[in-house]
């Protein structure tokens, strides 16, 4: 009988770990940014002006200033936004109002005599969030043209649009 081969198994465990290995995976993040073009005005309301002569025989006009109102803007559409300003209705004879807005960085402000037509009061407004910038009103009363009258109110309408 063929000699059977005996086998003595001597096991050498050769465990070799490969060091410095790495595995990787990727995540896709889908992100959506909406267009933002928002304007708000905080009015010191009801702001009131009393216009009266300084003294008899003195100047025929009087003016008061108010700087208590503010506006805020958020915009990410372009860097050339403008703010238009107009009055919602006609002013009484002898009364005129000018408005001037403090300009955020990079923007250009101009004082306007307010009418019922839109006028640019702030231009070159860039992208960003600008909070609580001052609005300054001057209210003029010309006694030569004014009639005595009870209190009246005027409403300013502001619009933020593209300047291009």
């Amino acid at each position: 009988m063929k000699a059977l081969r005996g086998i003595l198994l001597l096991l050498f465990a050769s465990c070799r770990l490969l060091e410095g290995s790495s595995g990787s995976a990727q995540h896709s993040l889908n992100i959506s940014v909406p267009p933002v073009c928002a304007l708000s005005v905080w009015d010191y309301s009801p702001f009131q002006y009393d216009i009266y002569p300084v003294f008899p025989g003195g100047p025929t006009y009087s003016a008061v200033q108010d700087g208590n109102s503010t506006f805020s803007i958020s915009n990410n559409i372009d860097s050339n936004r403008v703010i238009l300003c107009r009055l919602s209705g006609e002013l009484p004879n002898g009364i005129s109002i000018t408005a001037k807005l403090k300009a955020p960085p990079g923007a250009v402000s101009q004082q306007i005599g307010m009418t019922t037509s839109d006028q640019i009061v702030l231009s070159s407004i860039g992208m960003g969030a600008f909070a609580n910038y001052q609005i300054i009103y001057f209210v003029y009363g010309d006694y030569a043209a004014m009639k005595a009258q009870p209190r009246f109110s005027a409403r300013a309408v502001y619009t933020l649009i593209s300047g291009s």
Partner: protein
Amino acid sequence: MNFNKLLLGAIGVIALQSGALIGVDQTLNYTVPAVSSLTLSGDVTFPEFATPAPGENFAPVTDSSSSYSLSANSSGGANSTISAKLSAAAPSGLEVAVTLAAPTGATSASETTLSTSDQTLVSEIGSGSSLDQAITYSIKADLASTPPGASTVVVTYTLVGAQ
């Protein structure tokens, strides 16, 4: 212990079949591969940034719907790490920050704003497997430099075994 049982079993079988013992050596070589596997749950679609009030910026948006799982058998002890980076620079004005929950025994970094360079998010990871560890993303957008639109940001995670 298992080796001893195997050896005794082999000797017993041989003895039964041959009735004789002849000593011959055979060397069995085997290799345990390094395992360094990292998987992620599905991609993430964030809700659109909420329109801010005038004068305010976008509020951050967070997402905790995704997770990762890993298997590792590094020989270097509990020294594996997970790092992450953006595959390309994020769109202008956009920031992506992430926090990874750590497997037991590992250490998680605090919220990290991602860039195109690898940053370690989890360290001291030991050998073993860990399932469904939370990933929390936070994205921020600056109105001043983030135009409207949709974009996709790809984050690459790497599990590195100890050296």
